[in-house]
């Protein structure tokens, strides 16, 4: 695939104390971020969290109020976008409608004054990489959304950028195509080893594609970690709830020794003690733990170990690969969500609304939210 010849120098990207205000609104609040060379890092958060602003500051379309943008060991803060050596893909592709696919991809090379022969071979190489060989003469409007996105990707990578910026690149595609393109994007990024920053509000996309996930909210970086880390060990309620469904239990926390804590949760008259593992010496007092719906199992009989909460099935839907239950707990405002894997066609027990059940999970399957 000629990939080796397309590998640019993969560089580290560093943001140091970047902040940005738009009028009264703080879009970005003194944020630091490092992207190691060759990794794909995603900025994940709801709209208005500052992720797009971060990307636009890196690209040079916005200038930060404070802080430095460093690519490799060069401070690019004062450079215009065209001098930063980046690649960028936008959500709506932004192909040049008056140019053919070939001309679109060749644009960056022509700006860099690459000779016509090399332009032709590199354009062909990129079209092979995105599985669109022979599409040079077509116009963007003759392509499907997925094909346009591949061309946009090829156009941004052909110049061998030091860092590739992806702004919601799959947002405009329908679900099936989006999943295909996720794998496709990951394959291409791995092949070229380009340092990549992906902006997305889709937690599934962030988890699927990234080496590192950065969860942002209200202009602040809340947590940075591997997809597994941020999903399994969220530090805050926001991270826990933004990355998929999460059940929260609130109560008084007490240290039980040996890396174990006990949370006394009051549901009406009853007080249930939930155990949770945590290695730090966190302060005791009011605290919150989070449990993912798929970590909880349901049973009629009370299990003899783990955390157990009694409740009543309030709702049940079958979602193909799993059953989703809403369990009402007396004295608790929100229902508890439980996902149970649909293993065989007839084997497992399906609980009916109105049935009394015991929810249980292992103490290592819940996480203490330390940073609220």
């Amino acid at each position, binding site marked *: 695939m000629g990939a080796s010849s397309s590998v640019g120098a993969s560089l580290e990207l560093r943001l140091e104390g970047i902040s940005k205000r738009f009028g009264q609104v703080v879009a970005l609040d003194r944020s630091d971020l490092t992207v190691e060379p060759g990794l794909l890092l995603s900025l994940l958060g709801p709209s208005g969290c500052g992720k797009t602003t971060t990307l636009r500051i890196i*690209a040079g379309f916005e200038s930060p109020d404070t802080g430095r943008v460093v690519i490799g060991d060069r401070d690019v803060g004062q450079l215009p976008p*065209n001098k930063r050596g980046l*690649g960028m893909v936008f959500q709506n592709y*932004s192909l040049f*409608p*008056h140019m053919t696919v070939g001309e679109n991809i060749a644009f960056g090379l022509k*700006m860099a004054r690459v000779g016509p022969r090399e332009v032709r071979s590199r354009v062909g190489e990129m079209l092979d990489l995105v599985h669109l060989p022979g599409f040079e003469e077509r116009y963007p409007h003759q392509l499907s959304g997925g094909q346009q996105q591949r061309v946009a990707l090829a156009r941004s990578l052909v110049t061998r950028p030091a860092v590739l910026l992806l702004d919601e690149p799959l947002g405009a595609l329908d679900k099936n195509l989006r999943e295909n393109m996720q794998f496709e994007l990951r394959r291409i990024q791995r092949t070229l080893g380009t340092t990549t920053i992906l902006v997305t509000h889709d937690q599934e996309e962030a988890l699927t594609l990234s080496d590192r996930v950065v969860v942002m909210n209200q202009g602040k970086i809340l947590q940075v970690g591997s997809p597994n880390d941020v999903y399994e060990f969220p530090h805050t309620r926001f991270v826990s709830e933004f990355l998929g469904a999460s059940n929260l239990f609130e109560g008084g926390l007490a240290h039980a020794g040996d890396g174990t804590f006990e949370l006394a949760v009051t549901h009406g008259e009853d007080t249930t003690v939930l155990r949770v593992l945590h290695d730090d010496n966190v302060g005791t007092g009011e605290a919150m733990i989070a449990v993912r719906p798929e970590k909880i199992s349901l049973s009629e009989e009370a299990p003899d170990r783990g955390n157990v909460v009694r409740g009543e099935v309030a709702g049940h839907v079958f979602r193909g690969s799993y059953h989703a239950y809403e369990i009402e707990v007396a004295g608790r405002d929100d229902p508890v969500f439980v996902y149970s894997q649909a293993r065989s066609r007839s084997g497992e027990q399906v609980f009916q609304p109105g049935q009394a059940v015991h929810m249980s999970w292992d103490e290592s399957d819940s996480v203490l939210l330390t940073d609220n």
Partner: protein
Amino acid sequence: MSNTTSATPSAPLRRTRGFAGAVSPWWILLAGAFLVFFFVAPIANNLLNTDNLATLAERNPPSFYYKKLLTDAYYLKIVGVTVALSVGVTLICVLVGYPVALYLVRYAGRWSGLVIFLLIAPLLTSIIMRTFGWRVIFARRGILNDFLLSIDMLERPIMFLNGPGSVVVGLVHVLVPFMVLSIASVLRSIDPQIEESARILGANRFQTFLRVTFPLSLDGIGTGFIIVFLLANGSFVTLLLLGGGELRTLPLLIYQQFTISRDFQFAAAMSNVLLAIAVGCLYLQLRLIRRKGVKG
């Protein structure tokens, strides 16, 4: 010709179909009848007027007038001046109007409403008033001469009026809003991210404009060109008031044929030739735009 909207062609199409469905065919017939009575019929009538309106003692066949118009050096020159003036005014409108349109769309921000108002407000005034305004400015003892004399740029007043210069200024002033609005509407439809894509791919501001923004706005220039050209082609008030008879064009001549020489046959022939020129240029421009503009 529609370029940037190609991504979502179905939505507006469906809306149009829904609208056409709601309107019964009878209304279309009514509109058609209106056009036939007030547009097609007068033009057809005028084609015959070269023969019908023979009011002078001598009666000439229509071919006499057309031959005179298209072979006599005097009249040929007038035809040439008419076309040249229209093309010149239109080109100046492009040069003057494009930066305004670009500013309006890309940089005016919350002031864009004000800019549009300033553009359109003069259209609320009668063209005669606006043209007289220029007479006040350009007159021998007018504002411009007074100013130039006062700062010692001139020794004695210049005759600005009654020449091609004042006519062109007057026409550009009247017609440039149409150019600005045509270009601005197309510029507005260009996604700024397309320009940002070019920037990040290594193009500086100027290269981005030259290779992306400008080619994508050709449609707007084309539309503005046609509108301004046709309006300039048919204008005569400005010529009458600012040209002082120095600059002779077909519309002016038609006016004179009706009011002074009362040769209606000749006037009708002239207006037919003017119409033919307009239609011919329109056809050429449409073809040119279609070839140069964005395919899609």
